């Protein structure tokens, strides 16, 4: 059950990748591939099957994040879906859906991450313009 005081939100990011959906699918799930999202993890445990569980520990933004989840859908070249819990989800079981769509020789990859805590927005409201200006400076630095 969702704790009553945690506001949640959904987010979507999308990108066109110069490869076929099948190649993108294979690289995404291969934690030994430099193109995969879990490459460089300190430790990876993964059971690549529907209802299979995974764990990976990633260093990111100055700390180690443990991620846990369960695969809900694995359709090569089409879809990867899994639950996702980490310290950043504040105990909530969020859901990540990755859909792959062929577009010519490329693949449009869309990541929908549903039910994530809306804490950044909370910080925005609590600390106002100072916070958002600092976040802006970080974002501009990264460009």
């Amino acid at each position, binding site marked *: 059950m969702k704790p009553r005081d945690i506001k949640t939100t959904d*987010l979507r*990011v999308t*990108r066109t*990748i*110069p*490869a076929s959906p099948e*190649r*993108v699918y294979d*690289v*995404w799930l291969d934690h030994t*591939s*430099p*193109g*995969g*999202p879990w*490459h460089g993890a300190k430790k990876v445990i993964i059971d690549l099957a529907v209802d299979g569980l995974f764990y990976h520990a990633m260093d*990111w*933004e100055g700390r180690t994040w443990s991620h846990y989840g369960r695969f809900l859908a694995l359709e090569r070249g089409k879809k990867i879906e899994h639950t996702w819990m980490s310290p*950043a989800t504040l105990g909530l079981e969020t859901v990540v859906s990755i859909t792959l769509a062929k577009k010519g020789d490329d693949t449009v*990859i869309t*990541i929908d*991450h549903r039910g*994530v805590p809306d*804490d*950044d*927005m909370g910080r*925005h409201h609590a600390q*106002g*313009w100072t916070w*958002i*200006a600092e*976040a*802006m*400076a*970080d*974002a*501009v630095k990264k*460009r």
Partner: protein
Amino acid sequence: MTAAAQSVFLAISDPTRRAILDQLAHGPTRVTDVAAPFSMSLNAVSKHVKVLERAGLVRRARQGREHVLSLDAAPLREVARYCSRFERYWNERLDRLEDFFAKEKRK
């Protein structure tokens, strides 16, 4: 980052413009009243207001001879989303995936 988000970032990067937005957060305000607290000319304040209007953060309405400004905070939503930890995380993963295949194609 979209062009719209970039214009919002540019608009809120200046302390005078953030102070103007803080004023307008209390409600619609005449241009002359917006300019009053600042030790700069009305013309200089108007230039800052124009940057905010271009970013879609401020709307202007004419009431008789007066121009009244009001805040439209909707564009900040996109900026806040961009700053979201999760969105940064996934975008970094997609950067890595895109780089991987771009390098593979160049080989």
